[in-house]
């Protein structure tokens, strides 16, 4: 196996090694399945409850995607406004930073009061936790135009809008896709956290009920599923990013 292939397979090799080590520790020290389940145990529980897990996973998935969708729309619009106007940048950015520092889990009880138990709080938590990186990245892409290029265009009679559309937006696309990769993983965190206290469905709910029933294998299986979904979406956006904004990654290609 050459170096390049080794690099491609390295995550899977690392994963396998970790699982084997985990299994080994559990077997050798005879760790109780109620405290820390072994990979085998997690697998058997996963297989046993696969339909139930699939149901909860689907719920978590579409709720996350709904929240993420709203986050893209709001994040892009806010980022556009902040990035294209210096005044808006000065006014909005500090407030947004303060807002982003608040733990989103703390919003869940409030959202429950407003929207009740169920989809509402989960979608909104996913949205609240994931729009910030999108907004910041769009704004950064727009706000860091070279002044010379702006002069070149302005002298030709370009309006702010022309500069934004012709230069600003394409320029911020790599930042945008980069932010999607961060935001999607955050969105899954938001949904799961919210479902833990404010839903009767979803992986978050499954984690809580499995935990209280001492079914640690099932709880771990739920975690693995969230991780897998987040990773799959991350890879998807990564692929889209490479296809659409290859010009920004030219140096890493060779």
């Amino acid at each position, binding site marked *: 196996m050459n170096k390049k292939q080794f690099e491609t397979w390295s995550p899977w090799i690392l994963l396998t090694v970790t699982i084997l080590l985990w299994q080994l520790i559990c077997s050798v020290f005879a760790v109780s399945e109620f405290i820390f389940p072994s990979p085998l145990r997690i697998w058997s529980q996963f297989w046993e409850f696969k339909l139930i897990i699939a149901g909860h996973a689907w719920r978590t998935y579409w709720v996350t995607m709904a929240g993420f969708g709203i986050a893209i729309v709001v994040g892009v619009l806010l980022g556009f406004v902040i990035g294209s106007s210096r005044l808006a940048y000065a006014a909005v950015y500090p407030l947004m930073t303060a807002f982003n520092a608040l733990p989103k889990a703390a919003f869940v009880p409030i959202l429950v009061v407003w929207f009740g138990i169920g989809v509402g709080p989960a979608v909104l938590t996913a949205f609240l936790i994931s729009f910030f990186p999108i907004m910041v990245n769009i704004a950064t892409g727009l706000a860091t135009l070279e002044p010379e290029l702006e002069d*070149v265009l302005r002298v030709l009679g370009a309006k702010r809008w022309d500069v934004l559309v012709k230069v600003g937006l394409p320029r911020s696309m790599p930042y945008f896709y980069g932010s999607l990769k961060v935001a999607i993983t955050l969105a899954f965190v938001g949904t799961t956290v919210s479902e833990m206290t404010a839903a009767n469905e979803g992986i978050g709910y499954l984690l809580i009920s499995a935990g209280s029933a001492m079914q640690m294998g099932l709880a771990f299986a739920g975690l693995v599923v969230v991780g897998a979904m987040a990773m799959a979406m991350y890879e998807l956006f990564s692929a889209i990013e490479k296809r659409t904004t290859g010009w920004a990654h030219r140096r890493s290609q060779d």
Partner: protein
Amino acid sequence: MQAAAPSFVDFQDVWLAYNEELLAQNHFAVEAIDLQVRQGEFIAIVGPSGCGKSTFMKLTTGLKMPSRGRILIDGQPVTGPLKISGMAFQAPSLLPWRTTVDNVLLPLEIVEPHRSQFKARRKEYEERARALLQKVGLGGYEDKFPWQLSGGMQQRASICRALIHEPKMLLLDEPFGALDAFTREELWCILRDLWTEQQFNVILVTHDLRESVFLADTVYVMSKSPGRFVVKKEIDLPRPRDLEITYTPEFTDIVHTLRGHIGAMRKTSAVAPA
């Protein structure tokens, strides 16, 4: 058309302070600029960095309005951005997601009247862009992306972008500053040929004295704080000029004289810092 037009660029006692506060303190970026440039004349402005050369460019293109004085371009007072100008800077600042030819076409997507005809006449415009790229030696690179080109090639493309809408006035702000000596001389010749052929006005801002003397009809030396024109030097070397001329004693003498002015200026400003 106007044979009797006295001058193409006409600065009448122009002062600029960047904002109200600086104006109140009588702190000007450029002061008392009087300048008359003939139609088709190639002028160069040299001076130490930070002496207001770039400010001068902004005034000429109408991106900045003077605090005092009057600027006439082609007989008309300047009231806003001047579409008849093309600009290029030290950084080529090409857009990495567009091919070279698409980069050159960018101004036509913005400036009127081309803007509204762009879709309909795209073929013709593209031909024009390709011909221009060919002329500066970028034939075969039209469909490459800027990041596949060398620095010198990018700068050629940047100059093409400045010229694609056939401006009457080309403003260059240290366009060759980042290039190696050989590439720089090559681009001098390209600029010389383009100018000889199309006879637009050129305002070249530079701190390379040899560059200014080789290319320009008139060289202005600018002082730093206050930003003023302190020396005007007509370069009466015969045209067409060949690179060989830069090794003649006449050429060296002119460069030397200019160097003397700048040296003297630096000394006085060191003794009495403003």
